[in-house]
């Protein structure tokens, strides 16, 4: 949901906020796969999201993110015409690469209207083929993803990251069977599903030789679609995808936690816990505490330096019920701000993090964190 606004802002137009009532998310709509991994043109907006980490010989050297946003024609359905398919959407691709060795992040986004012969978004399965990004699920438990990476100095073709990933756990449906509430109103919701743990190999092409050409990768996949935008008093959001290292891969857990900050109300929060066996549970009572402050030299935005998450331990999680588990999420490096060069696009922070146990101080996992609404003048989409 939040990303709709970001998208609207990205293209510099309030006008992309739908004026037509596209089909809202419904609690009674059951998600069916692989169909619901595909595009939903009756929803106003939709996105597919991959974040993850690249390792070579057990050493994590980079984080990556690849996102594709789709937004339906704001004024309602449009017939096909010429090269334009029916209900042609506005597509925006965002790609980022965080280099842990140099402490530098490079990112780029590009956008266009769907055109026959240029882009393809399948509605029956995950099958995305647009300039600079290709994604598909060759089987029910595997992903094939390749996308263009920004690199300076620029070149054409751009460097490419290709990933072959296998799902480690079944698909997770957030909220009520994938109906994920994003705000107080009944329709302020989306259909939200994830693969919280993907693992496989990567191939890196076109990058300087200091980077390995192949290695292993882990990833997290999100897919969300809906039609309702948020209230005007939101100021930003903080969104976490946390993968904890278990004693072994089989014992690993994941958390998806987000909060939408509001100027007038308590932040709207939701969290999902995925246990080692892949069972997902919604948890309530999660507390998020920002720590310290990092001032971006570029945007002068003041971001929390790190976060302490207090998570009530549910019966199904490891540890005893009633206990509170405290995790610290801290960036691999601070300079992972996606600085906008576009006056209408918000500057925000999205990057690779490490997760520590607050009590022991030990690293217990990794995460991707998105923080918006901190840089001056970049209150997203409002």
């Amino acid at each position, binding site marked *: 949901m939040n990303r709709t606004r970001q998208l609207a802002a990205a*293209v*510099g*137009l309030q*006008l*992309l906020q739908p004026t037509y009532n596209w089909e809202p998310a419904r609690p009674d709509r059951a998600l069916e796969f692989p169909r619901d991994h595909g595009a939903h043109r009756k929803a106003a907006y939709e996105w597919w999201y991959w974040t993850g980490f690249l390792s070579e010989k057990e050493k994590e050297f980079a984080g990556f993110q690849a996102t594709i946003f789709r*937004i339906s*024609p*704001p*004024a309602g359905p449009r017939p096909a*015409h*010429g*090269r*334009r398919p029916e209900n*042609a*959407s*506005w597509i925006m*691709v965002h*790609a980022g690469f965080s280099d842990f060795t140099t402490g530098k992040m490079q990112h*780029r986004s*590009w*956008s*266009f*209207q769907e*055109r026959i*012969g*240029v882009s393809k978004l399948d509605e029956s399965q995950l099958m995305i083929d647009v*300039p*600079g*990004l290709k994604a598909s699920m060759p089987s029910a438990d595997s992903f094939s993803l390749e*996308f*263009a990476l*920004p690199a*300076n*100095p*620029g*070149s*054409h*073709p*751009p460097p490419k990251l290709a990933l072959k990933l296998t799902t480690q756990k079944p698909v997770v449906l957030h909220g009520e069977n994938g109906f994920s509430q994003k705000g107080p109103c009944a329709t302020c919701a989306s259909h939200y599903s994830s693969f919280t743990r993907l693992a496989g190999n990567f191939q890196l092409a076109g990058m300087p030789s200091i980077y390995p050409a192949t290695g292993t990768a882990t990833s997290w996949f999100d897919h969300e679609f809906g039609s309702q935008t948020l209230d005007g008093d939101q100021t930003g959001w903080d969104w976490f995808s946390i993968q904890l290292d278990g004693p072994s891969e089989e014992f690993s857990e994941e958390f998806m936690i987000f909060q939408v900050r509001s100027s007038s109300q308590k932040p709207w929060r939701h969290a999902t816990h995925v246990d080692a066996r892949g069972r997902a549970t919604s948890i309530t009572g999660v507390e998020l505490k920002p720590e310290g402050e990092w001032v971006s030299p570029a945007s002068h935005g003041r971001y929390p330096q790190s976060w302490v998450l207090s998570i009530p331990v549910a019966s199904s999680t490891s540890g005893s019920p009633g206990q509170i588990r405290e995790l610290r999420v801290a960036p691999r490096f601070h300079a992972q701000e996606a600085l906008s*060069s*576009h*006056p209408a696009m918000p500057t925000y922070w999205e990057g690779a993090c490490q997760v520590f146990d607050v009590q022991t101080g030990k690293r217990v996992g990794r995460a991707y964190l998105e923080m918006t609404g901190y840089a001056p003048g970049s209150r997203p989409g409002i």
Partner: protein
Amino acid sequence: MLLAMGSANLRVLDSLKEADGSSKRSLWNSPTSQSGETGGTRRIWRARRGQLTTAAFDHCLTFMPSGVRCLGLTVRQTRDVWREDAKKRNALPTVTLVAVAGSPFEVISPMISPALVPFKSYFRHAPVATFNDPDLTGGRSQDHHVLIDHDSSSFGGHDSIEASVDREISFDAAEKILDQIEDGFGDEALRVDPDAEFEARKNLTASYRLNLSILGLMSVLVSGLLLRNTAALQMMLRRPVVAVLRQTGASRRTIMGLVLSEQILIAVAGCAAGIVGGLLLEQAISHQVMKTVRVLYTPDAGNGQRSLLIPIVGATGAGLVVYLASSFAMLRSLVAVQPRDLAAREFEGRERQADAGRVAKGWRMRLAGIALSVAILLIAPTVPPVTSQGNLQVPLFGYFAAMAIVILAFSAASGASYITTRLLRIFVPEARAHRFPALAISTRRNLHARRRPEAAVATLATGLALVTGISLMVAGFRNSFTAWLAQSFTAEVVALPLITQDGEFRPRLDGDSHNLLRKTMQVDTDCVLLDEGTVRAPGNQSSLKGVPVRVAAIDDALPPDYPTPLETIPWPGTRTSVPNNEILREFMNSEDLFLASEALARKLKLKTGDQVQLGGIKSAGTHNFTGRIAGVVRDYSSELGYLFLSKKSYETRTGLNGCHSLRVYTAGVNAPAFASAVSNRLPEIASRLNIQSSDDLKKMATGTFEQTFKVTGLLTILAAILGGVALIVQIAQSSAGRRLEWLALRRLGSSWTRLTQLLAADVLISVLAGLALGLVCGGIMAWLLVVVINRQAFGWSIAMPGISDLATAVLFAVAYAAALWLAGVIMSWWTMRPGKAWEVLRE
């Protein structure tokens, strides 16, 4: 220097014409350049012929992941956006349809500009949104713009494709990426160099800048004069004080120190006030001028930041130097005189003796000046213009001759003043002197005086020459221009084809459709095919390739029931008795005759009967035409020049038929009615034509004309004001210099009223002399602008202004002179007013 401004104004006109082509582009550059994402490198391509294909655009899109942003644009004028049933409404305007690909606006199209909101319900496709973004409309929010998704349009390809590279990518890398895109386009794409475009725009504003800087230079000079006069005036007023100080025994050094430190204080205070006032004035001028430039041409003209430090430091520094130096010089001559003489006549007497030698030499100098400037002016029409790079004709000697008018004004000022006084004296002979004592005294005094208010007269004359000359030229130009417009657009309706035929660059209505239109609608038409080529003439051997020219193939220069749209003008080589229609008839009946526009004829020094060769015609490949010039016609549409030829012969050689432009004689039916009639009976043809009213076109042309000269007018008036101020201070200064004389008359029994009358009479002489001289110089200036500068720069004949224009100019000049006279009297009176200085003098 005042005249240099006049010439700069002509350069403005010149470059505005040149920049005409780039205006459409700059309009639609805005969405990208405004995005801020593309501060980096950018390229624009157009098709060699027709349009760039959508495949080319798709090719560009594949570069997006490398940091490229692509924009495809197609711009058309159309009325096709209106519902069929609404089309009959006359008020529905023609809109500028902009089909865009690669912009977020695609998904929310159609969008309309605010000016179209009142017509919202008549659109065939309901607009989704209104865009209230002046950047998108190039600042022209009044215009009717409809933004549509290119994929919704039936335009097929794109007029142009623009690719811009992320600013984070280095220039070299970006260039490499753009080269790759260009390679993929193949031979069909023609790069429009953004640098060249930028250059063109820079040139456009350059002449405005030149204009402004010449105005600036002029104000510096006039201000310098002003400051010198003010300093002199200050010193004159200090004379009694200095006298007293010297009599009381103060040393020269003491007095110099005292008075100079006072002057420094005054100067510093003046600087502060001057900076504030100057900046405000500069803002006001720039605002006005840039408003016009933006409306007419480039929406983002003059947006750059300018440092004000240098002009401020420069101006105040120069001002201080001039003021203090002249104060110092005046003061030195004051204290050099013996104390006893200071308040006495002796001082003036000594000045007079020094003058005497100068006077005799002065007369010789003046006569030489007059002779020189008259000689320059006389030969000016025969000196050819200089051809600059870009084939521009620069009337260098014409500008020089304009300078000669200034010399003339200064040389003749004393004579003009003498003659004016002589004439005025006729009204006050001895017998009537007692009835008009002020005039009697002033005229006699002025006749005897060895030093007349020459500078004042010359300043006024120069200012008036500029104002009168330019306004007369503009008036004459306006007359000629409107007459030409009226002649060229006798037809009620102008129809422009919208559809490009295969492989052609220019939209064309084919011959069959044209015939069908004529027959079905029962109308007469002027159907023109347009082209471009090069022409070689016997008089112009300098260029082997020939000179670029526009070609118009016309089917009927003599419509049987209507006046001809062409007007031949008398030209060397033509039998004087041959009337317009006969030349045109001869031209129509022969395949080997050309008509040349005046601009072309002048550029190539063509004579009637000359054999010329027309080659390099775009539509005709290697074919060449050879023909004789039958006559020369008036044309103000292009300074490149037109060659008219018979359509029959053009059609035979090129195989093209039909019209690129069509004028329709509808027998009184107006454009909207005709358009809807065509829609009803020939819907297929109607959709291929943009039918407009001739009157609208004429109005637009006249509007552009007026807008262009508004700036000229503004600058001229500013010059007049500056000149006026300089004149007033000069008058005041010379009045102050004659204080002893006023004192004598006062002692004798002149009341203050009488003294004021004397002042008024004195100033009147200067002003009348300046007025007379100014009008004469203005006439010469108008002549120079019309006959030399304009003709050489643009090749256009302009009628000399009519009687009513002359009357208006004279009236304006008289009003201007009257205002200056009043201001001069007040200023003089103020310097002479009863006060301390009188008392001191008396003791």
